[in-house]
């Protein structure tokens, strides 16, 4: 590309770099501050001395969380809900999207309309809540994974992707006597890794970060996912003893005086956000395609 070497161009360059550095700092500082604080001593945290480097380095907050058991249990719950939820999501969404992407499918138009209408009009919070109740799903994992078994947006992204696959592949397989199911599993899915990774990540993030269904459908605190525990401990600032020692009152009395409450809260925040922050950079090169298809052809 031809380059403009004028002064105004240099000024623009400086301005752009400046803005981008500010963006980097504003985005990264809060996250680094969380990590640093979760590893800092009590006094450093209470006096606000911590920036993005831990002061009086200690892992006691993580040890406390580990020993108390509430957070590890919630972490495992989240892993379980995410694994089951994403499996259901992918099975339902890929097969539905593939079927609706085949132009020779009779009733295709009707099915598509059936799928699109709920994007614009839904029953709303209360009827959904009562339906889940009536189905007997309340207070179980199924209340979290079944009502969100398919996202319409993700369905549209996948359908558009499948539609754009070359038709010759399918035709030659048909001549060899393969049925639609075989074509889908043996030919289409292996060619669709990019979209499967992207949608899989979208679903994973959605399940891992979900808290509201858990709040309205789950009663037993043993079943709570991590995000709900996070909300209780950090936002509602519930009694830290309860969260950290899960009801052992004597032990709670013993350490509450000298406990590093701030670090504990930051540590829970870290545990809650870290898994997704570690996953997304690996899948991000597929994002642009997925987001483009989803937002323009919806």
């Amino acid at each position, binding site marked *: 590309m031809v380059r403009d070497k004028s002064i105004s161009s240099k000024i623009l360059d400086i301005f752009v770099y400046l803005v981008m550095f500010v*963006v980097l700092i504003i*985005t990264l500082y809060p996250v680094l501050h969380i990590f640093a604080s979760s590893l800092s001593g009590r006094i450093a945290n209470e006096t606000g001395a911590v920036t993005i480097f831990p002061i009086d380095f200690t892992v006691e907050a993580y040890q406390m969380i580990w020993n108390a058991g509430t957070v590890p249990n919630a972490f495992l719950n989240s892993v379980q809900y995410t694994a089951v939820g994403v499996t259901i999501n992918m099975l339902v*969404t890929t097969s539905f999207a593939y*079927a609706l992407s085949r132009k020779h499918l009779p009733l295709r138009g009707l099915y598509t309309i059936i799928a699109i209408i709920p994007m614009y009009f839904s029953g*709303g919070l209360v009827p959904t809540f009562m339906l889940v109740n009536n189905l007997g799903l309340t207070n179980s994992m199924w209340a979290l994974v079944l009502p969100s078994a398919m996202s319409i947006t993700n369905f549209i992204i996948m359908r558009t992707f499948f539609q754009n696959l070359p038709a010759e592949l399918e035709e030659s397989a048909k001549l060899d006597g393969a049925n639609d199911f075989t074509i889908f599993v043996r030919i289409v899915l292996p060619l669709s890794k990019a979209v499967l990774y992207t949608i899989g990540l979208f679903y994973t*993030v959605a399940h891992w970060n979900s808290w509201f269904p858990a709040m309205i459908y789950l009663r037993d605190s043993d079943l709570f996912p991590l995000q709900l525990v996070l909300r209780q401990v950090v936002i509602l600032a519930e009694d830290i003893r309860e969260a950290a020692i899960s009801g052992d009152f004597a032990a709670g009395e013993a350490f509450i005086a000298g406990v590093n409450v701030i670090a504990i809260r930051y540590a829970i925040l870290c545990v809650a956000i870290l898994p997704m922050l570690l996953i997304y950079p690996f899948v991000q090169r597929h994002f642009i395609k997925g987001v483009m298809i989803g937002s323009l052809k919806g």
Partner: protein
Amino acid sequence: MVLTFVEICYIIYEINMNGLCDMTDAKNSKLGIFGRRMYETRYLHLLALPGLVYLAIFAYGPMYGVLMAFQNFRSRLGIWGSEWVGFDNFIRFFEHPHFWRLIQNTVIINVYQILFVFPIPIIFALLLNELRGRYFKRTVQTVSYLPNFISMPAIIGMMVMFLSPTDGFINQIVYFFTGNTVHFMAQPEWFRSLYIMSEIWTTMGWSAIIYIAALSGVNPELYESAVIDGARRTQMMRHISVPSIAPTIIILLLLNIGTLMNLGHEKVLLMQNPLTFSTSDVISTFVFRMGLEMLDYSFATAVSVFNSVINIGILVIANTIARKVSDTSLW
């Protein structure tokens, strides 16, 4: 339409031939052509089945529950046994002392979103497009996606911690300059600003993807010939880059305007507390409180039906205007 004699003969021949086939094949004669096509695509229908069942139960099932809005619903009696009251629940909402407050709060936050949250990703994408270092560009982009992957409770949790009047770092900065601390989360006048600022932080990078993609699709020859014609980079931004993403901007702006009265409950619910209700209580959180906390099912459903109807109305109007003003529209 005029058919030639030959064509008519051909059609009659076709009908006869198919008729003959139908008589020889008993299965086909029962199902007909449509049935045969359904049978040939049976595996596809099987693949579509889980999705259809899901939609029937969890997307259309609740729609039936919307009838509650016109009833004095009692769980014991169910939808068929409960008393029908017409529009009483709606009238109760219109006469509710907080009716206008709810509408106003919902609309103001959405207007702020359009004014402040919407343009930032566009500016970010345009500036990123001017960045020359490839690795630095990729780094900035990757980092800018990061907040999108942080959960809502974690984002609000971070806000609560950073804004804490006793030890949050933001309040320490405030204290350094003014000698006072501010209890941000408990003051109604701060709610909207906090909502919008955290929204910008969370969505900027992710929302910019679509503009970045549109910009990367611009033909480089356009820029090259502009340079030869002596155009400055700022001029190229204005006359090449901006027009190339304009259709995307219009569609997304349209979507934003279409959701003027539509604000999800999750984030507000996490941020609000009774102290800030005067600015933070919006229609969706009101529905949540009335429905799931006060258990006034009929009333809550009526409020959300009212909101849905308005939302669809606004979307249709926005779309009509867009179609008149430009070629771009949603449908």
